[in-house]
């Protein structure tokens, strides 16, 4: 299987400049600096790379949206990895910090940016020390700082730690947090490309997205686009967790069947139980029942199956579980993480929690299901950011595919 991001991931000392360079690290810089910045943007566009954080927006296009001739501009790397089920960025940050730095240098050169921040979730403090060390090494080598490799291009990159708030992974909330405020999402438009950090044009990309860029610059857009499907190009890191024998982060070519991830790479279902459901893209996307397990793992196929690729976190659930329990846990998460700015989200998540909790206490009625769907309808697309929609996903999909799990509780109404 093609390995682009994980090719050398378990090489000892990969996090050091020495080993990273021995393996060909930072080679892309010379290649990039020989080109005009706009050419790099065009190359990334042509590669078909799409944002790996969750939304899947074309990366090159995002870069080209920056407000013309407005400076300074900023790059924010979103390393706030908090989507339940997702832990791929953590592995990259831990084992290959220089790859991210190289990707950020390329992006900054392409977009004429002179300051970059890596916004890491507060719990990643130990990783921020690793990253600070790598940044120091890159400065010493002249890959960061003034007049990089004699090109006249200046760039510095800094780490910035959050302090525990899922919502700060949403790009506009991330900006507010980085500016020293409460991490509440902003109204869009204006989009960050026009008015982002400190009201200046800003690129915000996920760790994995930026880590792909060195490969594209080195090998060319065509080579990268030769992997994957017609519309989902390249490879994807997938965090497989839950009821599998070998949970882990796996790099697959886009379009690989989901069943290959579960049964081959992750070793199948633990205790040889049967697969009941899976959530393909992190807790914010709709779950699918077992019969959809052959769905190719790419943006379009998963969308056609009624879900999303999201952040690339495949959560596997076996038949020992009542899905209502899982759903309640997810609602509880969104209720906890709702920032409280918008009413549909703040109140909706709580109502969903209370109703599903009642169902689980055998105090439910059949009408509760309709009530849940009604509340979900009033939450979808009605808030500043997608957190409310994320909470709706497990509720609506669990009712759609596993209504009988809810009905189990109705049979026991009155039994405590």
């Amino acid at each position, binding site marked *: 299987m093609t390995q682009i991001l994980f090719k050398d991931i378990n090489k000892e000392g990969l996090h050091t400049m020495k080993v990273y360079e021995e393996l060909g690290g930072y080679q892309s810089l010379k290649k990039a600096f020989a080109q005009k910045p706009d050419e790099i943007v065009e190359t990334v566009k042509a590669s078909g790379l799409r944002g790996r954080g969750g939304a899947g927006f074309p990366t090159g296009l995002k870069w080209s949206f920056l407000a013309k001739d407005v400076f300074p501009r900023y790059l924010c790397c979103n390393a706030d990895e908090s989507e339940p089920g997702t832990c791929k960025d953590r592995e990259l940050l831990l084992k290959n910090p220089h790859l991210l730095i190289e990707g950020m240098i390329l992006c900054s050169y392409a977009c004429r940016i002179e300051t970059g921040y890596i916004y890491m979730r507060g719990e990643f403090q130990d990783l921020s020390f690793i990253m600070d060390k790598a940044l120091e090494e890159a400065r010493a080598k002249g890959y960061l700082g003034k007049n990089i490799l004699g090109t006249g291009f200046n760039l510095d990159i800094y780490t910035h730690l*959050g*302090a525990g708030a899922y919502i700060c992974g949403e790009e506009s909330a991330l900006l507010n947090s980085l500016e020293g*405020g409460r991490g509440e999402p902003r109204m869009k438009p204006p989009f960050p490309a026009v008015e982002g950090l400190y009201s200046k044009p800003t690129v915000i990309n996920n760790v994995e997205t930026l880590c792909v860029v060195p490969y594209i610059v080195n090998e060319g857009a065509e080579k990268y686009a030769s992997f994957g499907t017609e519309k989902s190009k390249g490879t994807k890191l997938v965090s497989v967790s839950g*009821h599998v024998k070998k949970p882990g982060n796996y790099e697959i070519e886009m379009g690989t069947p989901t069943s290959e991830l579960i049964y081959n790479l992750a070793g199948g279902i633990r205790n040889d139980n049967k697969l009941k459901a899976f959530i393909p893209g992190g807790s914010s996307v709709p779950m699918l029942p077992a019969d959809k397990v052959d769905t190719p793992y790419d943006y379009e196929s998963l969308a056609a199956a009624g879900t999303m690729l999201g952040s690339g976190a495949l*959560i596997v659930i076996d038949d020992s579980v009542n899905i209502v329990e899982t759903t309640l846990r997810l609602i509880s*998460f969104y209720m906890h993480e709702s920032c409280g700015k918008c009413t549909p989200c703040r109140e909706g998540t709580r109502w969903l929690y209370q109703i599903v909790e009642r169902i689980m206490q055998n105090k439910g009625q059949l009408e509760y299901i309709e009530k849940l769907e009604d509340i979900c309808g009033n939450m979808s697309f009605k808030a500043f950011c997608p957190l409310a929609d994320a909470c709706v996903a497990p509720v609506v999909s669990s009712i759609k595919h596993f209504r009988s799990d809810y009905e189990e509780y109705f049979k026991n109404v009155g039994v405590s």
Partner: protein
Amino acid sequence: MSEYKFSEDQEKEIAAIFAKYPVKASAMLPLLTLVQRADQVVSPEAMVAIGKKLDVSPAYVQSVLSFYTMYHTEKVGKYMILFCINISCQLNGSDKLLEHTAKKLNIKVGETTFDEKFTLHREECLAACTEAPMMRVNDTYYGNLTEQRIDQIIDSLD
């Protein structure tokens, strides 16, 4: 209320933090983190001191810190145990393990032990789902937990 004093080393660190940003306000979270690392909590005195550094009111400092779960205004134990209970951990039995941990420490979830050594909190996803069930003790991640392993970890901390 007595005045909060930053140490000489902290002042140096603060200067380095300010140098990272074009505006002072961005140093808010880094300063809160710096204070908490030294004091384990962010006291009202520290909020005043941080406000002064950033030219904002102490009330604004408090409004920001209250948004984030990692800042504490009340004393916590020497070891902060954050026990992940989110989906991948739940599927791998975190609820029972959390119960076990609370029993082992003889406290309820959310409480601090009498000797102020441990605080136990329920935590949302910590991005280590492939090692579920997991917990974070201060800065260290511990994965693939079992009752036995939890006991060993807790007993090994002094």
